[in-house]
């Protein structure tokens, strides 16, 4: 995929251009987004190579540069030194978890909680299940924990949520635990004690004892503590987080170091950066690498925010249709909410993650009929890339949404992934008719269209869930992801109900684009339990201000130290302090950025309370406001941001409404609204800013297809954003 540049100019640029390279390594494909300072970009694709990710990375990078007629196999040493920033997000950490090739971890917990990993939380068992599976009791199956029971030891001691010592640490048990685990041959020691987020004294002492014994026995093992890895309340999720860090961090990091090494061999001068779940990047040597595990879907939402900043839109709903899932996030007044207990591999973690909500709906979603009622069931499971749709002819005989899109003529069987994948349309047709259309008593094409519509309705409902409580008129809906363009016009619903509905030509690589646009930032936080009465006195406000400032000062100190390790000096840092607040008694809290930064006076605390109440009303509307109720601060945190180089969204000159002749491809028939219609086909890469196309039409790229229904038209603006409107 290529955007607006000539071969000659691109080759010339390689001598002096500064490139930003951003990678999104998915379970199936590795996307590489390359952009130059003029905002021109290319997207490369290659199969992900889980055993050695640097191979897939390299192949995808080479693919990207071929769109500029640059052969990296020959020209790498001229081109790569011009890369000024390389960012990674993907499955490096995940692979160690999936193939269970992580470290042999010894886990030390409070005595009495040795079986927490085996117990999990009951609801973790049904993570990823559809409603039917949740309710069908006999479906339940736990997965094996990453740390076997024999590698877990309990030590007596207890700290409460306010940091008070309830039971002192039994040091004789602590010593025995370490010695036994060393006998087990563990490769890493991880310590997770209750209440450590409020007072880590027991974890610190436990770590000291472990280190003393290690020193004595001449062993050199990493010793991790939960308050350092994830100092947040909720012991099950915190323990999961610590285990992921201990189990998968180093093997994941090795993959990243290999990618970096490969780039540096060709002259890349900077550290490789990785995306963190809260939408920033850090050096791949960042100690809390667990924060990168759930970063998969966040690239797109940051990309949306970045695009919004560039073109002047503050409120967005971003929607990403992939092969297996439909991910939706929201940018509200330029802010993105955080999910503080996201799911990962059927576990909850205490890793703050940008709030992206997913459902099992995508191109690979299976279509089935209930044998008892003949009701249509879509997913939630999917054929994904392997075995893929029926049309792949790789053994799957359950129809998928992609098969419908092929049958309806919306996907070009001769241009699937740029023609790299040959499709067996006949097989797809036969299976769909036999298993779906005939039992429903519907014409095959009518059935295919209605089922695609049904998926679109499910997606629309999911979007509605995210927007719930807000007026869509205030939001721009943007669609992307490999399959996004096939469904966007329909799941958007009434196009005029939105402020705007749009997509971009680089939609298939949008997540990677988002990664390139991220801040270089670290997020710090610690659970606290601070009470503020309603209408607090000056003394109460002063007390809270002092407590918060003390936390922020300590966190700022940590940030300065850790950024120094990444070569960033203090004066280049910006700090944004925040708290999590709720009305006392409530379970869920909300993140509130301190409007005054540090709190210099009781009046600043009042401003913080006012900000909380504003955010609360915005989130839950007035109905849930608990007037007269005390406030509770549950977490204190700080975001430290350093300057970083980001791609620019180029402003092009608007050309005529008619697409250029070279953009036109042979027309074909597509099925829509119950009939076959002659449909204009355009080459997406050749559409120019200012071009306007009326449906029914299709814009085809190698990895992205935009379907424009008859009652819709699209127009590409000066930033190459494609806007959908009612025609």
């Amino acid at each position, binding site marked *: 995929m290529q955007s607006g540049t000539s071969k000659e100019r691109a080759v010339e640029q390689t001598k002096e251009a500064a490139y930003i390279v951003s990678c999104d390594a998915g379970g199936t494909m590795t996307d590489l987004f390359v952009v130059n300072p003029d905002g021109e970009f290319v997207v490369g694709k290659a199969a992900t190579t889980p055993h050695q990710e640097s191979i897939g990375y390299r192949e995808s990078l080479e693919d990207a540069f071929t769109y500029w007629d640059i052969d990296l196999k020959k020209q790498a040493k001229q081109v790569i030194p011009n890369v000024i920033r390389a960012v990674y997000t993907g499955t490096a950490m995940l692979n160690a978890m999936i193939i269970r090739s992580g470290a042999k971890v010894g886990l030390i917990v409070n005595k009495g909680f040795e079986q927490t990993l085996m*117990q999990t939380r009951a609801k973790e068992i049904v993570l990823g299940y559809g409603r039917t599976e949740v*309710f069908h*009791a006999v479906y339940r199956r736990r997965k094996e924990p990453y740390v076997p029971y024999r590698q877990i030891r309990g030590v007596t001691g207890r700290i409460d949520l306010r940091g008070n010592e309830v039971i002192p640490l039994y040091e004789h048990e602590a010593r025995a635990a370490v010695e036994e685990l060393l006998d087990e041959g563990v490769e890493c020691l991880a310590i997770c004690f209750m209440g450590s987020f409020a007072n880590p004294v027991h974890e610190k002492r436990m770590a000291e004892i472990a280190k003393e014994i290690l020193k004595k026995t001449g062993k050199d093992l990493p010793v991790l503590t939960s308050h350092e890895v994830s100092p947040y309340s*909720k*012991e099950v999720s915190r323990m999961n987080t610590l285990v992921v860090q201990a189990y998968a961090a180093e093997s994941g990091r090795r993959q990243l170091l290999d990618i970096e090494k490969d780039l540096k061999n060709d002259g890349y001068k900077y550290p490789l950066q990785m995306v963190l779940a809260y939408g920033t990047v850090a050096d791949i040597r960042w100690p809390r690498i667990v924060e990168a595990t759930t970063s998969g879907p966040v690239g797109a939402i940051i990309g949306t925010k970045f695009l919004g900043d560039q073109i002047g839109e503050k409120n967005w709903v971003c929607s990403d249709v992939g092969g297996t899932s439909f991910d939706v996030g929201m940018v509200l007044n330029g802010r993105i909410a955080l999910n503080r207990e996201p799911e990962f591999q059927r576990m909850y973690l205490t890793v703050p993650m940008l709030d992206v909500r997913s459902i099992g709906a995508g191109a690979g979603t299976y279509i089935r009929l209930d044998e008892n009622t*003949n009701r249509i069931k879509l997913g939630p499971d999917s054929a994904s890339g392997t075995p893929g749709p029926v049309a792949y002819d790789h053994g799957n005989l359950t129809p998928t949404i992609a098969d419908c899109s092929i049958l309806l003529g919306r996907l070009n069987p001769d241009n699937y992934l740029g023609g790299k994948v040959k499709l067996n349309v006949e097989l797809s047709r036969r299976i769909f008719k036999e298993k779906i259309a005939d039992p429903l008593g519907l014409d095959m094409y009518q059935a295919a269209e209605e089922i695609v519509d049904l998926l679109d309705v499910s997606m629309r409902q999911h979007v509605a869930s995210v927007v*719930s409580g807000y007026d869509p008129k205030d939001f721009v809906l943007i669609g992307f992801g490999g399959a996004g363009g096939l469904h966007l016009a329909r799941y958007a619903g009434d196009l005029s109900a939105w402020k705007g509905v749009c997509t971009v030509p680089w939609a298939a690589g949008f997540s990677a684009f988002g990664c390139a646009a991220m801040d270089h930032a670290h997020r710090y936080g610690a659970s606290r*339990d601070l009470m503020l009465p309603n209408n607090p006195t000056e003394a109460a406000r002063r007390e809270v201000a002092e407590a918060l400032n003390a936390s922020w000062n300590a966190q700022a100190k940590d940030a300065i130290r850790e950024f120094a390790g990444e070569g960033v000096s203090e004066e280049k840092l910006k700090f944004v302090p925040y708290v999590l607040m709720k009305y006392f008694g409530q379970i869920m809290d909300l993140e509130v950025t301190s409007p005054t930064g540090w709190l210099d006076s009781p009046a600043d605390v009042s401003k913080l309370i006012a900000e909380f109440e504003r955010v609360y009303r915005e989130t839950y509307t007035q109905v849930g406001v608990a007037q007269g109720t005390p406030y509770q601060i549950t977490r204190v945190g700080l975001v430290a941001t350093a300057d970083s180089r980001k791609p620019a969204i180029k402003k092009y000159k608007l050309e005529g409404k008619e697409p250029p002749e070279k953009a036109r491809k042979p027309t074909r028939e597509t099925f829509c609204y119950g009939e076959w219609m002659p449909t204009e086909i355009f080459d997406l890469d050749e559409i120019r800013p200012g071009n306007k196309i009326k449906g029914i039409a299709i814009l085809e790229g190698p990895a992205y297809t935009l379907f424009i229904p008859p009652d819709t038209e699209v127009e590409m603006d000066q930033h190459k954003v494609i806007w959908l409107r009612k025609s």
Partner: protein
Amino acid sequence: MKAKSLTDLVQKPKSLKDLVQEFDRQYEETGHRFGLKELRLKKESPTKYEAVWATLERICEDAAVTAANVSASAAIGEARDACWGILAPTGEVICCSSGVIAHFPLPTQLIRWMTEQGYEDDPGIHPGDIFECNSPHAGVHANDIYDIVPIYWENELVGWTFGSAHTLDVGALSPGSLNMASKEIFTDGLIITGEKIGVNDELKKEYEIRVNQLTRMGFFWLLDTRARVAGCHMARKGLEELIKRYGVDYYKEVVKEFVEDSRRYATARIKTQAVPGRMRRRSCKDIAAEGKRTLAAEQARNFLLLSALEINVDEEAKVKVNFEGTSKWVPLGVNVGLPGVHAFLACVFCNVVGFEYHNTGSYGDLTIQDPPPGSFMNPYPVNPFAPYGSSWAVIWHWMSMGCEAFSRYYFSRGFVEEVLAGTSHMPGIEIGGSNLSGIYTTVVNVELVPGGMGARAVADGEDTAWGCNYPAADMGNAEGLETVTSFVWLARRFAVDGSGKGKYRGGLHLDSLYMIWPSKQGEWTLTDCGITNRVPHNSTMYGAYPAPVLKTMVGDGNAVKKRIDERKDVILTREDPRKPGLAKLGEGNYQAVESPILVPETLSQYSVIEGDHGGAPGFGDPLERDPALVKSDLDTDRTTVETARDIWGVVATYDKRAREWVIDDAATKKRRAEIVAARKKIGVPFKEWWTKSRERVKRKDLIEPVRRMFSESMSLSPAYAREVREFWGLPENFEY
């Protein structure tokens, strides 16, 4: 007769009462909900039909997720003990959120009750009204409170939304969630019987004042009400948008089809998987109140309650349920109104029968014969003042029997993967005191809702995984719950050997150890959710054992503190059901407690309580268990070497160097042969057993609670009495 559409009916000036009767009659006459022999809208456009269903599901889930965030209860926020949904005008559930499915039949009962009471005329039903209920007329127990909100479209009532949630305290005689202490309903707390608590979408001020005045934690109650009502209003908004999109006529018709379709789904599953016939299950619930502190003298005795379930499935998969033989109401808060019958059946049907589309149709073709009037499952026709504060104590038994009964139907047909041997049971440990914020709270151990699953016919039941009343139940994080409680968790272990043994064992429950902290002084009561004291509940399948009877343990605070100071072990959970860990505190410093403790007892700081959390029943003969599974349980501290030897007949030794158990195959073979021989020795032919037992029956040679139970059952159920006499060959005038 051609069924009339809801549109036809509602447009005419028919009362809700008339409509309810009309729909009941249509169902009775045609066998189809609303008389729908054909699902016209589904046939015309199956995808439009599914699109509306997807929208309804989304509306319910959105309401649940957002409302839970507003709530106060740890039970809602951490463990989601709540449910939201959408109803037809006449009360049929159309769709509901995930959550506590036991709640979803209750609004139906409320609306039917309201129509019978003439609510349309007085107090009237208007847009913006909010009705609330927790009374036994349309509720299960006082702490499960629910609200309903009418939905109007152009001045026509087109449905309701509901929100239900467990509230931590209702101001009953004993603090908290499971008041068993009452002799009569008057001390079961603040009871709201279908009252209009709000108008114009606002709560009435006098309602809020009353809640604050009459409950211990009114602040929590009201936050929960706000959560329920906020969810109702969100769902209403979503529904209005849906009606706008699809048209009111389509909406009114399609919701009826959803209910009928769901009925067909449940019925088809039964028809496919069950063998027609009669299935009976019995379970006994004992309450050891003799010698306990009670409100009235008549409460201070030992009770035995007979739960008698009979299910008949015919060749058309129509299911009839009766409760003949169920024993009499008791002067303690474990009685259940008829809504409880609907609640437990909803749980059974949703989990093992019709789990695909949750609504009133999930019952399939079910006919319920009311339990004998005056029984503890239907006391109110005889005793309108029967207390009901802890009715879950008996409902758990019914849920377990229901799952087991259907599993037997399925197993008989060869659907072995569908078998679920029953549910686990838990105590109701209620601990009150001052929490970390210095506020008085009382919190019940709702963390135990996800108990052990019954064994499957192909695998062990999962441990701490599932609640029949709430399939997606969750125990939450202790650190989340401790923001509210006046105690801390010292342990959350699997209850060693706490489930039924079998070829496949039942899932284990949690063995939690709570310590009074930071409160200087705590108070506690002990009631239950199905736990028994001396009589195991009877659920188990095909030669397996039920879960063992366990006792709640209490340890003295001073003794615990002394051990802490001496750095001795204080995480004293039981080593197995025979070896209480707290025994290490020394004689006089611990006690095994049988349920109930009805009057709050005081505990000092550092006192500990260990719950006797019963696991789930097993499946099949324990001697057929794969020794490798026994080894796995030994290696993970879920069983003991003694149990392995005595119950499973597996001989194992511990390899200290390898730190794992090793099975001795030869010794195991020998041991199993010994157990079989021993069994043969004590086995007698049925005729011999019957003859001997008959003599005992004739002599009425039974302990008093048993004699009394049978006597009451026979007096309440003539049919049951007749069968008892026939079975034992007794004269017609025989009575216990």
